[in-house]
C-alpha cells in the first residue's frame, strides 16, 4: 500500500530481470530507497539488476524463481512475504519466442502457455492469498495489447496474454472486498530485450515511458492502463473492426 503521498516501502518483482518490471520498480520508488525483492532466474542478468538497484540505494533481496516450476511458487511467494508486508507485487515475467514456431511446434507452444498463463495464474493465486491476509497492497500485472485482439503475426503470444489479462481482471474484483487492488497494464510495442530485432510497431515506446504511465495510474488508483495511453482508443477501434478488414491492416 502506498503511504499518504504515494510512496511504497516494499516491492516484489516477479520476473526480476524484466526491463519493464525493473523500470516500474524504479518509478514506484521515485527516488526514495525501498526494499526490493527480485524473484527471477538466477544468473548474471539477475545479479546485475540487483547490484544496479543496490547502487541506487535500495535494499535488495534476491529470490531464485523459475516460472515453469509452478510447484515451487507457493514457497517463493511465502519467502517474499516473510520479512514484512509487500506493498506492490509486479507480475512481469513472460516470454515472446518465435511466433511461427509457437503455433507449429508443440514444445514451443506449450512453453509459451505455461510461462505466460499457467505460471501467471499460479503466482496470482498465491499473491492473492498473502495480500488478502495483509488486508492491503496491490498487484500490477503486465499484460499486453496483443491479448486484446489476436493478430496473425503473434496470436499465440496474444492468446496467452489474453488468458492472464482475464485472470487478473477477475482477480481484481475478487480482491476488492479485502482491500487489495489490481492494476492490469496493457503496453503496446515496447523496445526491450524481449523485442530486440523486431521491427517496431506504431506507437512504440521504451520501458521507462511505460513505467511512468504505470506508476501514475497506480497512484491514481486506476484498474486498467494502456501504455502509451493513446492505445486505449486504437484498441477500441481495432476490436470493432470486421475480420476481413482487420486482416488487411499492416499491423
Amino acid at each position, binding site marked *: *500500500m502506498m*503511504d*499518504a*503521498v*504515494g*510512496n511504497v*516501502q516494499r516491492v516484489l518483482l516477479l520476473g526480476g530481470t524484466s526491463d519493464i518490471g525493473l523500470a516500474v520498480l524504479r518509478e514506484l520508488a*521515485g*527516488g*526514495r*530507497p525501498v526494499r526490493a525483492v527480485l524473484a527471477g532466474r538466477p544468473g548474471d542478468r539477475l545479479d546485475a539488476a540487483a547490484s544496479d538497484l543496490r547502487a541506487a540505494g535500495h535494499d535488495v533481496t534476491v529470490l531464485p524463481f523459475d516460472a515453469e516450476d509452478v510447484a515451487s511458487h507457493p514457497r517463493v511467494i511465502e519467502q517474499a512475504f516473510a520479512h*514484512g*508486508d509487500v506493498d506492490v507485487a509486479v507480475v512481469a515475467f513472460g516470454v515472446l519466442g518465435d511466433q511461427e514456431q509457437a503455433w507449429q511446434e508443440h514444445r514451443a507452444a506449450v512453453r509459451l502457455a505455461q510461462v505466460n498463463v499457467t505460471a501467471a495464474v499460479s503466482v496470482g493465486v498465491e499473491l492473492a492469498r498473502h495480500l*488478502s*491476509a*495483509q*488486508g*492491503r*497492497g496491490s498487484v500490477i500485472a503486465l499484460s499486453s495489447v496483443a491479448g486484446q485482439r489476436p493478430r496473425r503475426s503473434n496470436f499465440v503470444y496474444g492468446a496467452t496474454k489474453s488468458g492472464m489479462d482475464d485472470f487478473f481482471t477477475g482477480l481484481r474484483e475478487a480482491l476488492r*472486498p*479485502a*482491500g487489495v487492488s489490481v492494476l492490469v497494464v496493457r503496453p503496446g510495442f515496447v523496445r526491450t530485450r524481449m523485442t530486440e530485432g523486431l521491427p517496431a510497431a506504431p506507437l512504440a515506446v521504451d520501458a521507462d515511458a511505460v513505467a511512468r504511465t504505470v506508476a501514475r495510474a497506480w497512484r491514481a488508483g486506476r484498474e486498467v492502463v494502456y501504455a502509451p495511453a493513446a492505445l486505449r482508443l486504437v484498441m477500441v477501434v481495432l476490436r470493432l473492426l470486421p475480420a476481413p478488414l482487420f486482416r488487411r491492416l499492416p499491423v
Partner: protein
Amino acid sequence: MADVRMAGEDEQLARAVAAATGRGVIARGLGRSYGDPAQNGGGVVLDMTSRARILSVDVPSGRVLVEAGASLDQLMQQLLPMGLMVPVSPGTRQVTVGGAVAADIHGKNHHVAGSFCDHVESLDLLTADGEVRRVSRESDAQLFWATAGGMGLTGVVLRVVLRMSPVDSAHYVVDTERARDLDDLMARLEADDHRYTHSVAWIDCLAGGRALGRSVITRGRSARVEELPRRLQQAPLSFRPNTRLTVPDVFPPRVLNGLTVRAFNELWFRKAPRRVRRDVQGLSQFFHPLDALRDWNRVYGPRGFVQYQFVVPFGEEQALRTIVRRLSDAGTASFLAVLKRFGSGNEGLLSFPAPGWTLALDIPLAGGLGEFLDDLDRSVLDAGGRLYLAKDSRATARTVHAMYPGAEEFREVRDRVDPNRHFRSDLARRLDL
C-alpha cells in the same frame, strides 16, 4: 481492510488481544490522528469509544478516573461545571483519553504545563498476556514512559487516572498581536511567552520576501470570574459549544488553491488587530475553532491533505527560517501553519514534545509533495529535530528512528511485555516500531 470491533468489557478485550496473532490488534479512539496509527490492515481494530464512562471524580484534588474511550469534549462538558478543565487540550476536543495518552498530545500551554501524560498519575493497561496492569511512574517507570506517546503499541489503555486543572471559568483572557515577519515573531514569543499560560502563533506561509513569517499571535490564560463581562458572571463555568456546521462532502476539488488561500490568509492577517489586550473568549473559540465546523477536512477536496508537524531545538532558528522560506517558495496552499515554543519534554520514549520551536501545517496533496517533505525531513533531522507521529503519514522507518533515540528502548520494552507482537498497526509496520 481490518476487522473493526466495538470494545466490550475487560475480559472480552483480553480474549481478543490474546487471540490476535498474525496481523495483531490495535486500539482506536475517535480517529483524529492524521496517519495510520489506528489502522491495522488484515488485523483487528478495537473501537474504544464504547468504553467512555467517567468513573470517579475527586473535585478538591482534581483527580478523575476515566475510561479510555471518553473524549476530551465529554470531560469538559461534564467536569467544567465543577470547575475542572482538561489539563492539556489540542486543537480539537474530539479525541479520546486513550488516544491522548498514546500520542502524548500537547496544547497551547505546553511551555508551562507539559504534555498530556505529565498529568496522568496511572493507567490500567491491558497487555499482550491478557493481564490488566496498573502502570505508574512508581510501579513500572519504563512501561509507563513507553506507553506515554507509544501509539498504543504497548497494550490497550483501559482507564486513566488524570489530574484535571482547576479553573474559575470556561473563558480565557486573550491578548492578540501581529508580528511583521519571522524574526519579529520569534522575538515576541521569546520575550513574553512566560507571562501567559497559553501561547500560539498563526503564520501566513504564503507571504514571502520581507513579509516572510508574518503572523498573528494569540496568548492568554484562564479567566477569573471578576474579569468576565457581567452577563457571563452569572454562570462562569457554563460550557455550551456552538452548534456545529457541516461541510458538505461535495466540496469541489481545487477550490483551495494558491489564490484562494492567499486571499484567506490576507484577510485573516488584516482582520487581526495590531494589538488587543484582555479580550474574553470562550473555551471553544480559544482552543477549538475548527470543531465548530464539522468535517472541515472536506474543504481540501477528494484528494485530501497531509499534516506535517516538527520540532527543532532552540538554537536552530536558522533551520526554522530555512523551512518556512521553502514552504513559502513552494507556494503550498496551507491554511493553518501554527508555531509554538515548547517547554521541556518528558521521559516518554516516543513522546514528541522537546524544548524548541514546533511548526504544524496542512498541505493539500499534489504531485511532488512526497519528495518535498522528504527534503524537509532531512532539514529537521539535521537540526536535531523530530516529527510528530500522530500527524505523520509518510515518513520512513530510517528517518523516524534517527529522530527518536528512545525507539531502541521502546522496542526492548515491547520485547518484554509483548514478545510475540500482539499489538500491531500500519504505523508500526511502516516505521518498524
